[in-house]
């Protein structure tokens, strides 16, 4: 599904990713953990195609295609979904209108027929219920005045609606209390199907109790410095990052 080879990325001239390699197979859930400043968000933004993240060398192959030459909207149409750590507020654009515009833009890019407003509303309501997203939230401006938990739940709703092939969850657990975390994790787990891969980026092990990964990678100093099964996450929890980073240096 996703093959990253020796990726070097600079932001404003400063190198953040220094030779990152990662392979994610179809249907697999991989966790990326690491200390602050290790490059976790940089990785997610590069995968989503954000401006200002310069790939100086290396490659990203997604479903056999070079992802780096595609603009963000083309990646979305091909099934790449980034659940942001800090979802953006867009005043004046209602949540439901945004969902319809985005869903139809993706379908149009894939030469699929567009849905009318009623169909989109039906699809959305269906998925909104289990995520405790109210009708009121759908009618309000996108993310404006939403709590941290509400914003994250809306990211998961989008994931359910767009049905991506590769979902990147960037610190989805940040700012959430236990109950909110459980609700979000439940939503994500429901979307764990054979054709879908996930990259769960997190600083803390806690989320991984609920979204159990197939593989854990430790990102430090812009590179993957350790890999293992889900037990690695528990080990990090117990002993912290410093010993792993030291060992790898």
């Amino acid at each position: 599904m996703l093959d990253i080879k020796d990726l070097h990325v600079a932001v404003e001239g400063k190198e953040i990713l220094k030779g990152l390699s990662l392979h994610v197979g179809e249907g697999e859930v991989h966790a990326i953990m690491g200390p602050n400043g290790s490059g976790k968000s940089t990785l997610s933004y590069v995968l989503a195609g954000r401006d200002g993240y310069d790939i100086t060398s290396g490659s990203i192959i997604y479903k056999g295609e070079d992802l780096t030459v595609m603009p963000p909207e083309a990646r979305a149409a091909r099934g790449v979904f980034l659940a942001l750590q800090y979802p953006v507020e867009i005043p004046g654009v209602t949540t439901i209108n945004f969902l319809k515009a985005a869903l139809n833009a993706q379908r149009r890019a894939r030469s699929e027929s567009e849905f009318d407003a009623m169909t989109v509303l039906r699809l959305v309501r269906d998925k909104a219920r289990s995520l405790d997203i109210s009708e009121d939230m759908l009618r309000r401006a996108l993310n404006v005045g939403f709590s941290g938990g509400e914003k994250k739940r809306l990211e998961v709703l989008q994931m359910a609606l767009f049905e991506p092939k590769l979902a990147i969850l960037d610190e989805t657990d940040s700012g959430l209390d236990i109950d909110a975390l459980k609700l979000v994790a439940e939503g994500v787990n429901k979307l764990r199907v054979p054709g879908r891969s996930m990259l769960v980026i997190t600083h803390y092990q806690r989320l991984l109790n609920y979204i159990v990964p197939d593989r854990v990678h430790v990102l430090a100093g812009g590179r993957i410095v350790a890999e293992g099964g889900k037990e690695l996450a528990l080990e990090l929890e117990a002993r912290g990052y410093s010993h792993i980073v030291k060992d790898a240096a």
Partner: protein
Amino acid sequence: MSTVEDLLHTSTPPASWIARRGAGALELLRREGLPHRRIEDWKYSDLREVLNSAGGTRAGKELHNPFTALGGASLEIVDGVLLTASAKLPAAIEMVDLSGSTAPPPWVERQLGTLVHDGLCGAALALMTGGVALRVPSGMILEDPVGLFFRSHHSHHVRILLVVEDGAELELLEHHAHQGQLANIGIEIILEEGASLRHVRLAQSAGDAALVETIGMRQAKGSCYQSHFADFGARLSRLELQLDLDGVATQTELRGLQVVLPGRHSDMTIRLNHRAERTASAQVFKQVVGAKARAAYQGRITVAKGADGTDSRQSAKAVLLAASAEADLKPELLIFADDVQCAHGAAIGDLDAEALFYLRARGLDELEARSLVLRAFLEDVIGTLSSDAVKSCLWTAVDEALAELGAAS
């Protein structure tokens, strides 16, 4: 090339009673010349520079009036002269063609030219090629809007007088499509007691046209005025509204949007005078400015001594789409009364890059993402229109302009 002398020459001499009214203003114009940027009120619109600069007029693309699709009653004014008056115009509305030299009815004689306040506005009266006076009689409530559609290929001056009598109601749809060098339009609007006017103005100009429209207006006791002004820029496009709230308990809502195409100019200058008690006004002006374009909003609100209980709100916001775009927002409040509530705010910024990335990462391409954000920005101007059909006309014009702005970037 046009100087004041060229401007002061008109091929059709107006009726003498009109010329007499405008003589003072004409004299003023002769003395001072065309307005230019060293006159504070014209700081952002140097008409003298625009008209004096070299180069002939270049015809622009054909302009389409979206209001014609509504199929309602309308008056067409071409090169300053009333060309057609639709048969659908209700018989009860009194309409007078001002290009004739026959003596006008008393209500025209009484009102026309009373709201002239500067040289250019006076010139529109004294030099008018033609014009129209409309009167909506007392108590008449018109269900359907009436269109006032202006178009031109030549420079001209034109005058309009609109009187909405006690308790009458009118919705006016005004459209401008000018290709001549200068269209100088002077409008006088009088709202009598309890009258109500909903006014939608859409101005599109092509080529090298300069459009100057001055509206002098008076609201009597208990009257309501709700306006929506949409302007897409021209070589120089200026709308000036001078509104006197003379009667108590008037309601005034002014909303404007300026979506200024690359290289163009748009100036909306509002002079609102609260002169009586318990008058309420609200203004919302939004600007979207393209590369090398310039948008100005000047909003002076004066609350006279004794105009207690005035409630006045004003908000102006601009989005700049390029480093070479310019927006000038100048709210002013002059308060001489004691018991008032006045609020004003102004903000200028560019498109939020985070918001655009978020939308693109969800599948919208760059053009769609910008359009979504800009439409949302303009929603609280267009959204307050009560008629869905008229709203749709405005969105059509706005979407066309946004597409042109998007393609240019």
